[in-house]
């Protein structure tokens, strides 16, 4: 079933997000118990649960070391027992993907052992925003504000700009993969009147993106 957001005419949703999960299911076919469509559905949810647990374990361990062990254990109890995380952790939704980005982003910003990890933090929030839900990028703003504030107080502007730039560039890598998927959903070679017969090697050179022309 195709919803209107996925129609190339509107292209509100990205295929990169879907593509990642398609790869996961393809890999799942290597397992003996993944075969029917129903098992694919639940296999993907199991992977979601595993990814979410890995992200949260990372945040928990950083909280224990750099915040306070008691805060960390309460965080873990809230996450594990609340019905909110019960359904949010395993949903096949861009919001859930963005949530994983939030967890890893928080981890990076909290962990300043061995230098500030601003770039890493921006990258995780950025990946969650670009491949998941663009609006989730708002969550990085308090941390960027702190970085700018600290830079202006300590007069280390150059290092700060460098860290912010570094993080932005890392997020852009995710954006490139997103744009590639956008191209896949917008390239209609049948409408290409001036294209010469294509060999597979000249394929990328002859892309006719009708979205920009028609």
């Amino acid at each position, binding site marked *: 079933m195709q919803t209107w957001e996925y129609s190339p005419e509107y292209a509100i949703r990205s295929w990169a997000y879907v593509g990642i999960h398609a790869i996961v299911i393809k890999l799942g076919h290597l397992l003996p118990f993944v075969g029917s469509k129903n098992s694919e559905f639940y296999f993907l949810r199991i992977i979601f649960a595993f990814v979410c647990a890995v992200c949260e374990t990372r945040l928990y361990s950083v909280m224990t070391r750099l915040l306070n062990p008691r805060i960390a254990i309460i965080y873990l109890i809230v*996450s594990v027992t*609340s019905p909110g995380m019960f359904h949010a952790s395993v949903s096949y939704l861009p919001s859930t993907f963005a949530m994983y980005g939030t967890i890893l982003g928080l981890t990076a910003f909290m962990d300043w052992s061995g230098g500030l990890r601003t770039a890493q933090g921006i990258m995780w929030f950025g990946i969650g925003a670009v491949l998941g839900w663009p609006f989730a990028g708002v*969550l990085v703003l308090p941390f960027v504000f702190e970085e700018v504030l600290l830079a202006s107080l300590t007069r280390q502007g150059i290092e700060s700009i460098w860290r912010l730039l570094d993080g932005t560039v890392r997020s852009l890598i995710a954006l490139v993969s997103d744009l590639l998927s956008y191209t896949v959903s917008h390239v209609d070679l049948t409408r290409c009147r001036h294209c010469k017969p294509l060999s597979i090697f000249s394929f990328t050179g002859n892309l006719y993106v009708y979205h920009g022309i028609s």
Partner: protein
Amino acid sequence: MMYNIFGGSNKGPDIYGTEPWDFYIRNLLINFNVWFVLALFAMPLLLLQHFVRGQTVSRQSILRSIILVSPLYLWLAIFTLQPHKEERFMYPAYPALALNAAFSLHTLLSYIGSTNPKDLISKVPGQVKFAFVMVFAIAAIDVGLLRSLGLATAYSAPLSVYAPLREPGVARPGDTVCLAKEWYRFPSSYHLPSGMRAKFVKSAFTGLLPGEFSEARVGFGFFPGAWLVPPGMNDENMEDPGKYASTISFKIVGLC
């Protein structure tokens, strides 16, 4: 994003339903019960602990602590102002909510555990404090687990209702399941056996239904289903008669 913010009239998120301003508060109380209340108090408690009681909350600086608890407030404020609200919109802030709740409870515990004679709480015997905290924590955990159990047992019908179709001999490739007013409860085509399809019949619903991916194998590009424009789509949630199947073609009719 362009569509959601600069859509113009008859477009944008609001045509898909709006909710009152307290939707997220009610929703988060269901999803996080008392932890949500604690999460909202994270910032005041942090400031109180630091500036009034003169104690540090964590090993991070006060500035870093303030920054760490602020994403939840930012997120809640932005989405409360949007008329179109959905439960999933809060997902990216769930970890921030759990973090804030942990900050709050930790701060409260350090006050409750205080043995400083200047604090009133130090007059309360240790066993009473312990019992109070344990009852609070166990109640909060139980309410959360029971709600999760409730979600799994009381709301899982859309996941189990298609199971009989997967029994051997029930459905053949090319058969169809028809969906009517309850179409939005259809979890996904992954719950149908291979070769079986879901189609819609006309019901009380008058918005735009999902269509079908093109299965034409045309052109040289990859995944033609993704780049061929499906017919009858619009971004104003207007009904498209082409989305309905004629009822004569059904071999299996259900959920109508």
